[in-house]
């Protein structure tokens, strides 16, 4: 019996920021590889090719059977890229970035990357102003012996930090796809391969100037909309990409219930208090990252318990300092 033609085993991902949004970049197996996280098991199956118009042209008038379909139109794919956040492991510069899976995918999630040599060499990621075109990515997946290409990829962003392991970054994306083609996984050059991502140890959380709370769990979501498809009848293929829009950075945090004299989430919610909130993962320079907002408000509080332990889960939503400032949140890799 012959061997199976295709296996659901090794996968690979390439991604590059497009110089011209929605125009596919030429990808390199060495310069554009991203270290994708698949967990402890086999990777997920590829997501399907989808169409805005599926080709259905209704029923045959004489017998009510389906009419022979026409060609579908407006091809796209949606998926989720996951990675473990880590730093470069050596000094950042204008040309030395966090690894591709962080630096490029954060840009694709609507952040502008800015290098600063002060106070220490660091890359900062802030919401891309709406008078600028947000970054679009060309993404190639190697999965199940197939090459899946898409351009104009934009994404949402979330991460989970549960237990004491490494937080997991997730980027749910959408992009205009080309037809998949046979291609085995080539040799990819993964950047900073020797750097181990920091675990949720010695995490520093500051909320309303309180740093003493015992942190159990963090779940962040940017809640970025990338839904709106550009239907383009005058374009071959019919799909001109997606429009990204509103976002709402929210951290859902579970802590051991502190004394109300220390931190009272119900009171902070009731007074609509705005306070600085930040999380820092990792302690080693060039392999640590911090996510913060200078203006956070508690929008939900849920008392909880873990066995005999009283806990509380509260949700902090970042807002901008003025209607035009792009400072609702800040990610720093330093």
């Amino acid at each position, binding site marked *: 019996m012959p061997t199976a033609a295709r296996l659901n085993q090794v996968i690979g991902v390439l991604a590059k920021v497009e*110089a011209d949004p929605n125009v596919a970049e030429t990808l390199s197996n060495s310069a554009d590889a991203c270290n994708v996280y698949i967990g402890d098991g086999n990777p997920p199956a590829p997501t399907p090719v989808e169409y805005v118009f599926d080709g259905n042209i209704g029923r045959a008038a004489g017998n009510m059977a389906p009419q022979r379909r026409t060609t579908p139109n407006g091809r796209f794919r949606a998926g989720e890229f996951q990675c473990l956040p880590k730093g470069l492991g050596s000094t950042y*510069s*204008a*040309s030395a970035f966090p690894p591709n899976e962080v630096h490029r995918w954060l*840009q694709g999630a609507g952040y*502008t*990357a*800015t*290098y*600063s*040599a*002060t106070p220490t060499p660091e890359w*900062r990621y802030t919401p891309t102003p709406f008078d*600028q075109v947000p*970054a679009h990515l060309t993404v190639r997946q190697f999965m199940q012996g197939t090459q899946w290409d898409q351009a104009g990829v934009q994404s949402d962003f979330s991460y989970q930090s549960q237990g004491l392991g490494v937080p997991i970054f997730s980027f749910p994306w959408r992009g205009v796809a080309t037809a998949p083609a046979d291609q085995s996984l080539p040799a990819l050059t993964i950047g900073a391969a020797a750097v181990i991502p920091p675990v949720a140890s010695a995490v520093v959380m500051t909320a309303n100037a309180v740093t003493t709370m015992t942190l159990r769990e963090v779940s962040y979501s940017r809640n970025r909309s990338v839904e709106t498809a550009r239907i383009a009848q005058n374009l071959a293929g019919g799909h001109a990409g997606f429009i990204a829009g509103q976002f709402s950075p929210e951290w859902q945090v579970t802590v051991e219930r502190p004394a109300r004299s220390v931190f009272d989430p119900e009171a902070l919610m009731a007074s609509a208090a705005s306070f600085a909130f930040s999380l820092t993962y990792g302690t080693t320079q060039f392999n640590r990252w911090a996510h913060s907002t200078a203006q956070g408000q508690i929008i939900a509080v849920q008392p909880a318990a873990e066995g005999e332990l009283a806990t509380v889960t509260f949700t902090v939503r970042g807002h901008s300092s003025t209607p035009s400032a792009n400072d609702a949140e800040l990610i720093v890799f330093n």
Partner: protein
Amino acid sequence: MEFFTFTTAKGEVVTLPFPIDLPLTERDDYMAAAIAAADPTAIPATTDDTED
């Protein structure tokens, strides 16, 4: 698009973009030149001792 930021001697924070088609290997030189152009006081003092 990627940017770089710096603070001038006057305390002004300046953020400038990297040209999209600039090779990575030329970025550091480009940034140094841009900072020097925006903030002449940041230029390290250079002397030419060959004529002394």
